[in-house]
């Protein structure tokens, strides 16, 4: 049982990273508009995040120091500061989107306007990061997030033509009524959502919070191999459900309630209730993950004591950062900005900033001074470099694509 809980970090990181408010809507939107022909973007993101999460986790457990700390030391404070500013701003806005996402999910359960839920959710997120220990937090939110497996069960209950779904996935094509730019814009949003920078910081910092050492490398890899594919599976489940239930009815998804309709259609009220619980759990997990990531980044860059393994009175600056970030995110949320749109923009801008996160990880993971005999091998370097080239191309293309397609609407 203890071993089972050891993969909770990977599950929480992946569910928070893959299945946040933006992905809940974007994956369903992709399924309703393109069927499974964009599944490759999620699979590609899965491979990319697994490669870099393994690297970051390995760096953390071998050096017993967090990635951001090493990035600052290895690349110098100026380069690390650019990385810090880009990652921090993107992650801060993501907290706002996720808090709004929890509120939207609670609106579906209560019919109380989401804006009334935003401050309550902000308070809840702060209480969780303030009061709960890291293991309770990762186990509780990771397990609750697993309730979203209902979207996969719903797909199975629909008895789809599996051959057709697999064929669509394996033979991607651009539908006749969709422009190339719109198709690739959606591909980038799915890819970017799976490779959000905070996943790397959270996973590597979480490895230190969990007290993993060099001998726990196998646990790191188990987390990567089980947790992240699970997050991607949930994304593909959302996509497939939308493809089977919403696409035939010409429903284009742009609101959260539409993402729950396939579960309701396939499994009735129970399926709907579990899906809503899953939405709340995943978005809450993402909100907590992003909030902690902001604290981790700042704490590690400035060399403070940080983390949940230290008592709040001993790392007061870390907790002040957390409080201020959650407060700022809540204030953004109560302005009434659409959390779904906000996440879409965050994903696009984070896609533009991906090389800033992944390049330093690749550099540090190759440094024999930190990594000794556990530095990257040929396979990790080849794949890592290939993905670095890919994310660089994406980072150049993403904002022009957003403008050309009017955010995917054109």
């Amino acid at each position, binding site marked *: 049982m203890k071993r089972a809980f050891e993969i909770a970090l990977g599950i929480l990181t992946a569910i928070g990273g893959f299945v946040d408010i933006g992905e809940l809507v974007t994956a369903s939107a992709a399924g309703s508009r393109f069927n499974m022909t964009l599944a490759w973007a999620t699979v590609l993101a899965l491979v990319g995040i697994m490669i870099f999460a393994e690297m970051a986790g390995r760096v953390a457990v071998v050096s017993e120091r967090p990635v951001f700390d090493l990035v600052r030391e290895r690349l110098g404070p100026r380069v690390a500061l650019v990385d810090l500013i880009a990652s921090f701003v993107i992650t801060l806005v993501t907290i706002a989107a996720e808090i709004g996402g929890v509120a939207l999910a609670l*609106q*579906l359960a209560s*019919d109380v306007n989401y804006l009334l839920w935003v401050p309550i959710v902000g308070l809840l997120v702060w209480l969780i990061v303030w009061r709960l220990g890291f293991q309770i937090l990762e186990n509780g939110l990771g397990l609750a997030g697993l309730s979203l497996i209902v979207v996969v069960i719903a797909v199975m209950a629909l008895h789809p033509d599996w051959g057709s779904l697999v064929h669509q996935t394996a033979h991607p094509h651009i539908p006749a009524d969709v422009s190339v730019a719109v198709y690739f814009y959606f591909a980038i949003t799915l890819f970017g959502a799976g490779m959000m920078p905070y996943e790397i910081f959270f996973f590597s910092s979480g490895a230190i919070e969990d007290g993993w050492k060099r001998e726990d490398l196998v646990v790191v890899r188990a987390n990567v191999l089980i947790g992240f594919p699970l997050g991607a599976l949930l994304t593909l489940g959302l996509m497939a459900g939308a493809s089977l239930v919403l696409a035939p009815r010409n*429903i284009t998804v742009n609101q959260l309630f539409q993402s729950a309709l396939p579960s309701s259609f396939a499994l009735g009220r129970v399926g709907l209730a579990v899906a809503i619980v899953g939405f709340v759990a995943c978005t809450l997990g993402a909100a907590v993950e992003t909030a902690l990531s902001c604290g981790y980044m700042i704490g590690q860059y400035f060399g403070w004591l940080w983390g949940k393994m230290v008592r709040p009175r001993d790392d007061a600056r870390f907790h002040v950062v957390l409080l201020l970030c959650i407060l700022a995110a809540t204030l953004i949320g109560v302005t009434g900005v659409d959390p779904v749109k906000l996440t879409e923009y965050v994903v696009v801008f984070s896609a533009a900033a991906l090389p800033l996160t992944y390049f330093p990880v690749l550099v540090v993971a190759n440094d024999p001074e930190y990594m000794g005999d556990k530095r990257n091998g040929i396979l990790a370097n080849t794949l890592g470099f290939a993905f670095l080239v890919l994310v660089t191309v994406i980072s150049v293309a993403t904002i022009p694509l957003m403008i050309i397609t009017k955010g995917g609407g054109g």
Partner: protein
Amino acid sequence: MRWVAAVALGCLVGAACVPTTRDAPTYEAKAATTAEKAGSAVASGELLADLAAAHRLLGPFASASTAGAEAEADAIRSTFDAIQPPDHRSEQLREELDKLLESASSALSEMRITARRGQVADLAGFRKQLRSIGDNLDQFQQDHS
């Protein structure tokens, strides 16, 4: 002279605030896209009605969802209505589509009221009406694409 320049600048800024299209074909294409988007909101309402008929909806979800579909239809309508039709034929097109958009908003609004009263099972009664509106929107889109 300065005030003339200020008035001219004001007119330019004012004109820029009114979404417009250069020509009738562009306006017609936007009308077709609007009908397609509104069709999606109506189809969401129709699916909700189907789920209500099959007792597969929860009360608060039904209420929040119908409100969401209504808000989407209203937003689509107000966005289209803000576009300046370039000629007389486009004005007629606008009137034709506006009637369809109004009927969509109205039906979804009635659904929301019914759901908020807790009469979730009664949502099934909107199926026929929504299907008819959806068919009309689909026909409009095909005619003008």
